[in-house]
């Protein structure tokens, strides 16, 4: 990523630097504030929030909101907590990410190293598919899933995410493999390696970084998706985001803000952990999805 390159040659004086650091610190507070609010309020009793203490640290620390959000909170019709929905999301994300990444790698390999007339058109078609408003496919997809017997199921969601994830994974691998020296492929061809052997022995061993980028991107996108989850799942197949929204929007009873915050953190945790552990790759994925980085 380009942001790791050395900083510019522009010099700033001492006073200016103080202002700069102050501004940067203020913005750190701005970006961290909602996270702070979520964390501290998920650890205090509801009464403290209702008393106007949203910004203060808990007087009485408690994990009860977390327990409630995880296993007992009312989600839609059942008081199951978010646990089953968390599992749904895992069951949905893993295969969808795995399959779309593998397909993306193969597509990128074909589109860069086995070029044919019209390959750019094919890639353009795949690429534009990444950016369409999914409202455009909701109606036919609902019917299609019904026809396939996958309506309202986790496999149905896997399928949907797979279909609309291929474009991006192909984009990543294509752009990466484009930088991969074609001479290596030619050398392997002369050495007698075939299509899959070249892929497995020459391309894949060098694909680690882009695979990480792609997996992180797909994971984040699919985990965070709401539209498909809301459109194509039933009560027992809802992903985490939909369940969280149901929890927060439910109009029955007292609003348990602390439980909502705990649930929100649970929904955010997997992607946050990925971001903290592999932020570099996450940013690379973001950039590659928008600019030529």
């Amino acid at each position: 990523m380009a942001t790791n390159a050395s900083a510019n040659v522009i010099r700033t004086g001492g006073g200016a630097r103080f202002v700069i650091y102050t501004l940067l610190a203020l913005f750190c507070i701005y970006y961290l504030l909602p996270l702070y609010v979520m964390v501290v309020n998920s650890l205090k009793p509801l009464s403290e929030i209702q008393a106007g203490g949203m910004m203060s640290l808990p007087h009485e620390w408690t994990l009860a909101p977390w327990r409630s959000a995880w296993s007992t909170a009312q989600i839609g019709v059942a008081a199951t907590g978010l646990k089953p929905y968390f599992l749904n999301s895992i069951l949905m994300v893993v295969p969808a990410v795995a399959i779309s990444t593998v397909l993306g790698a193969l597509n990128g390999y074909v589109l860069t190293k086995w070029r044919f007339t019209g390959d750019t058109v094919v890639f353009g078609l795949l690429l534009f598919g990444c950016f369409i408003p999914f409202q455009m496919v909701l109606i036919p997809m609902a019917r299609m899933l019904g026809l396939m017997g996958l309506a309202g199921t986790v496999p149905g969601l896997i399928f949907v995410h797979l279909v609309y994830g291929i474009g991006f994974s192909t984009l990543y691998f294509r752009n990466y493999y484009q930088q991969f020296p074609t001479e290596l492929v030619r050398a392997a061809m002369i050495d007698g390696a075939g299509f899959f052997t070249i892929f497995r022995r020459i391309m894949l061993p060098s694909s680690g970084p882009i695979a990480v980028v792609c997996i992180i991107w797909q994971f984040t996108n699919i985990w965070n998706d709401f539209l498909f989850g809301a459109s194509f799942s039933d009560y027992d197949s809802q992903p985490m985001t939909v369940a969280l929204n149901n929890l927060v929007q439910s109009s029955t009873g007292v609003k348990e803000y602390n439980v909502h915050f705990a649930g929100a953190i649970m929904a955010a945790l997997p992607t946050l952990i990925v971001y903290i552990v592999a932020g570099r790759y996450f940013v690379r994925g973001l950039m590659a999805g928008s600019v030529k980085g």
Partner: protein
Amino acid sequence: MSMTATRRSGNDWLRDALPKIVLSPSLAIVLVFVYGFILFTFYLSFTDSRILPSYGLVGWQNYSRLFSVRAWGIAIDNLLIFGSLYIVICCVLGLALAILLDQKIRAEGFIRTIYLYPMALSFIVTGTAWKWFLDPGIGLQAVVRSWGWESFTFEWIKDSHMAIYTIVIAAVWQTSGFVMAMFLAGLRGIDNEVLKAAQIDGASNWSLYRRIVIPQLRPAFMSAFVVLAHMAIKSYDLVIALTGGGPGTATELPATFMYSYTFTRNQMGIGAASATIMLMSIAAIMVPYIWSELREKK
């Protein structure tokens, strides 16, 4: 190629076709599930579909009805307000932060991580956090009042004139760090020798940025615009989580309009028409962009 066709055995044929065979499932999927579905929805927008697809053609009726529905007018107005503020604020903030962060800042990586983490969150999480933070009963207003400023009032989220701006606030919070990263990458791509030359010419830091650096960030601005515009048009989750489209229909956006008309109000024809309008506006932004990217890369 024509010369060689004569002595191909079946094995050779398979070998030569293999790359295309590998690519074909993906292509087929995209052709059916993207382009086929687009055509299907486009077709539906000219039919009398209500709760289920129906194939009686009604011409442009759905479109004329769409543009006479008040909620769609609100959605379009909101999109214009939200979209323009979102894009402008994200760009200004992103550029400012990128320039500040490009001054050999200690702990730059750490600060960057903080600015960017909201991008990893679901809009539902962002919406939930901001929903309660902006809630007058328990959030910012209540907190400031509990600190002693009894008359402090901040009720935008409950105010049908102001609620759309709360969506801007939350969306900017989520995305501006990403725009910062795009500009930072652009800044790092600028040739230091050019800056040195300008310094030797006597340019101040201010004129250095205004005259030399920012003009060179044009591609970053382009990318930021495309990404942000495209996200604005598709915005759905955030509205659902933050305001649910309310109060009333005050924060309706095209995406929420489409969903409610199609699936809860059983006006599928009008929903399809609104989706088509969304697609057209995104295509107007994305197609030239993708076109130019692919041409350059050739």
